[in-house]
């Protein structure tokens, strides 16, 4: 066999083999850990937030290749976004940026969205003063 055959496309494989932002943010401002009951995957995202923007994002994932790639890609995508922008983050962005996922694996990108939102909620919980603004979906200026 000369070629290499892969279960996922090149982008997904790259993010699985060389995950970006793997680990935990030190002194994180928000941490979200979520699990998918159906497949048992567990994803944790930690955020460093400064001036209303996500300065750093890191993940740890117990899950299949596309779960790892999804969390890697999600953390890449959200770095530099404002909290409100991040609150509107959708799993479709992950799927698109990864160049597609197999239908049975779309839920992995959903899990990444959920982990991110859980981390943001954690941050907001610690900063109740931001809740009103965020719910209006307006840019949050701190």
């Amino acid at each position, binding site marked *: 066999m000369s070629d290499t055959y892969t279960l996922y496309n090149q982008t997904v494989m790259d993010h699985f083999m060389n995950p970006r932002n793997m680990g935990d943010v030190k002194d994180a401002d928000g941490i979200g850990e979520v699990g998918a009951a159906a497949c*048992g995957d*567990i994803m944790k995202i930690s955020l460093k937030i400064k001036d209303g923007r996500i300065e750093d994002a890191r993940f740890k994932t*117990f*899950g299949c*290749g596309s779960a790892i790639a999804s969390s890697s890609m999600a953390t890449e995508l959200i770095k530099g976004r404002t909290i409100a922008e991040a609150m509107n983050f959708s799993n479709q962005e992950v799927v698109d940026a990864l160049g597609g996922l197999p239908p*049975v694996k779309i839920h992995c990108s959903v899990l990444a969205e959920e982990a991110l939102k859980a981390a943001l909620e954690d941050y907001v919980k610690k900063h109740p003063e931001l809740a009103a603004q965020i719910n209006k979906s307006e840019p949050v200026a701190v």
Partner: protein
Amino acid sequence: MRHVFLDHQSSTPVLPEVFDAMKPFFMEAFGNPSSLHQHGLRVRDAMKKARQQMAALINADSEEEIFFTSDGTESSNLAIKGVAYANERKGKHLVVSATEHPSVMQSVEFLEKQGWTCTRVSVDPEGLINLEELKAAITPQTVLVAVHHVNHDIGTIEPIVEVGRICAEKNVPLYVDCEASAGWLPVDVKQFGAALVSFSPHRFYGPKGVGVLYRNKKARIVSIMHGGVQEGGRRAGTENVPAIVGGGVAAEIALREMPTRIEHTATLQKRLWDGLKTNIKFIKLNGPEPGPMRVSTNLNLSTEFIEGEGQLLLCDMSGIAVASGSSCVSKSLKISHVLGAIGLDHALAQGNIIMSLGKGNTADDIDYVVEAFGKIVVKLRGMSPMWDEFERGVIDSVINPTGRGKSFSQHAADISGKAAH
């Protein structure tokens, strides 16, 4: 990079001798065995020889007891449904072990929708069927008992001779799915007291596209594939002649080489498991220890705190081919019903891969796998929030409980809001 194929349970390469035997049947002897002329008669002769070779592998009396189907799945379907439909008037109850292959389980579920009932007999934590429960499950309405020889997931060798004895006492035909054993372990239909036995050559260096069903002449069975009168009216459809011929040769070679194959794989199996458990902490072998209760080809491993597909993909990128979960359903998300039946913790069932050995594997291969797999585990644990939480004492190990933290499953349930199982 070294390439190590450790997924012989999914399929095996065709042996050169097998391929050579098949070759003439594509372009030269291409006849349909139903034809009454030269071209048909020639392949009919060849099929008869293949039947004899199949019969010899399982110690059947006569090649007339051998039927060809398209694969192991069809053989299971035919055994289950064919016997059920043939004996409808006698009764509509079946008994199967809880760890049968999906081709048996799903056939049974199909029949249940049509009014049959079925008792699933439980197994112990190593996958061995509960013989008392089996005995108690058989009623006067029972028309078939199905217990496989070797479990495809966890390698357990079932006590088929005792199962056969119980079936004989109760006078109920026994179907033994030997897909995971034939070619790797002696199968003797007489010693088993089996009315039906199935297997498929692609699991022992024969081609895909053919399955075998042995049927004792006394067992009543009807066709489930309707049409022409091929296979004595028990399986309609143009026969896959090259695969049948190749399968016969594969059976003959398997019978001859069986002692060598068993010894070779058993040695490697031990080396592999010894290496892995020395090298990796919190790793568990599912099914019996290597030895008389486990087929020599299979290792089913649960490595704690990491998930199976990632292990499989990283193995693949290291040139090592392994299977994740049940080798036949790895496209589905569900964990193997076998691991459920032996009561394996959900966390361990997820981190599950199957390594299956073949005659081409070497000791060097094994040493390479032990080392590579160790690195893979380290890499995946480095990414795993569970490993981190275990190290921080938030959750505990199932394999080696330390008495601190909550269980993985509890933790998973807490964060997902639902029970993991």
